[in-house]
């Protein structure tokens, strides 16, 4: 029973990280119907920026905040400089551009920071918490990870649901033609979407890297898991992305805990294939009502 609780909580922690990546993919997908293959690369690069700031300032929080800001800027800059010129061109152009961006970011990180594995500090203690002497299998930093992703998701949900800026973004995502004809600067909205996706990626990067290592390809596997989570939840559904991330995190934690940790990648791939075959729009894709 204790093992089950530990695996579940551990799965929730990693699930929230997958959810952050999934949410960043959903943000861009909804607006542009583009899968951003560079998302992991952006997260990796901002995590390098964070570690450099932490080394220089000796402040984890300075690095944390700078990483988030860098994510915003990197996302917006990517959209403005290389993605926007593909607007109106064949869809494959934009896909190839994001793959090119990923290669560029990983190459740039190798040149600037080297290819060796680097450890990344945690903002809180990584000692396991206990309740009445029973280890929970999660640390204070894990609690912070869950809280940070949940809070960010909540803020985004409130902004999208209750503000004019959020309505603008939703309108642009659902129907860019109507949005433009109503005076919404859709191109600007898409830039904001990419910036927010960059922020979420940066958040995932600084939260997951204390559990792994930092190197130019370090976010590739996380990206694949985040993508899997997004597919599970439905690439059109922000709530589905979060739930998909949680389901995937918990499932993989059980597999790693009860079976063999070497199987987790295989199981993730199996889940991805199964969802695509059985319910390609995702488990939580909204059913659209049409009345004629």
């Amino acid at each position, binding site marked *: 029973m204790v093992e089950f609780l530990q695996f579940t909580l551990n799965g929730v922690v990693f699930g929230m990280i997958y959810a952050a990546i999934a949410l960043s993919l959903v943000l861009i997908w909804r607006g542009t119907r583009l899968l951003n293959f560079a998302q992991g690369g952006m997260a990796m690069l901002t995590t390098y920026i964070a570690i450099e700031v932490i080394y220089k300032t000796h402040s984890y929080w300075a690095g944390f905040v700078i990483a988030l800001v860098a994510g915003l800027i990197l996302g917006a800059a990517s959209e403005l400089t290389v993605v926007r010129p593909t607007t109106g061109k064949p869809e494959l152009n934009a896909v190839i551009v994001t793959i090119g961006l990923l290669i560029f970011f990983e190459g740039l990180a190798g040149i600037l920071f080297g290819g060796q594995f680097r450890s990344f500090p945690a903002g809180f203690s990584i000692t396991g918490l206990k309740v009445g002497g029973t280890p929970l299998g999660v640390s204070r930093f894990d609690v912070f990870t869950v809280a940070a992703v949940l809070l960010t998701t909540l803020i985004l949900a409130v902004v999208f649901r209750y503000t004019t800026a959020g309505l603008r973004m939703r309108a642009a995502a659902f129907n860019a033609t*109507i949005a433009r004809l109503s005076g919404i600067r859709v191109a600007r909205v898409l830039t904001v979407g990419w910036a927010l996706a960059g922020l979420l990626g940066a958040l995932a990067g600084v939260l997951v890297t204390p559990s792994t290592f930092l190197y130019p390809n370090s976010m590739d596997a996380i990206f694949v898991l985040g993508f899997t989570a997004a597919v599970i939840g439905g690439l059109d559904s922000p709530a589905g992305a979060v739930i998909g991330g949680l389901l995937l995190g918990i499932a993989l934690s059980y597999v790693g805990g009860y079976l063999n940790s070497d199987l987790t990648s295989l199981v993730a791939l199996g889940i991805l294939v199964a969802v695509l075959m059985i319910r390609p729009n995702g488990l939580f894709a909204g059913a659209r009502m049409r*009345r004629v």
Partner: protein
Amino acid sequence: MSSAANGSGPAAGAGSAGAAGGPEMGTASPAAGESASLAVEELVAGYGEVVALDGVTVTAGAGGITAVLGANGAGKTTLLRAVSGMIKARRGRILLADHDVAGRSPEQIVRAGIAHVPEGQGVIPELTVEENLRIGMMSWRRGPRADRVAALEEEYARFKPLADRRRKLASTLSGGERQMLVIARALLARPRVLLLDEPSLGLAPRVMAQVMDLVVRLSRERGLTIVLVEQNARAALAIADHGVVLNLGRVVATADAASLAADVALRHHYLGF
């Protein structure tokens, strides 16, 4: 053949239609802004290699209804798309009250005072009725929230069925209610010129009549300049002041609506009634 400018106000003969109104619609309010003429001069536009408009000249007089008619592929929808900036004009001028807006983006053009209600895709079903309406005010410059609330309430007074369903998803509306919604949203942009593309498409005859009555009322009571693209030429000419007939991207006839409706040869060749 090029068109003659309309330049006139509303035709007196259409007054009865304007007074009729639809049974589900409230009273119209005074004009929100001054009306303006729209003049398209020698417009060339198209898609890729295809030239869909080849030197089209059309003038819509301030405060009147101009019907743009023709068979499928004549260039009617392309004309509206070019005027609203959805496709770039390759040549020619688009004058809104003598200011050339050709080449501007759709966002700039709606701010200049031209609202476009496109064919069959106007409602965003994932949003509520009120959210769909609020989108119509996105072109406003910053101003007091009270102004926006008042503008919304004005449209709710005009379109009472929308007021009752303001919190419902737009996907739950009937065809007629959806058409009300997209027109109300366009009005919230405070346009001087309203481009309507097939507003009666897919509607039951009774609802279509209501929509046509609404178009007349918007022109007569609010002073809007309306460019109406319609497959149903008979219905369009019945409410229009002026008409333009397109064929294969060129203007083949332009005259006052009554003259076009009386031209048997023209009706037979191009208008299908």
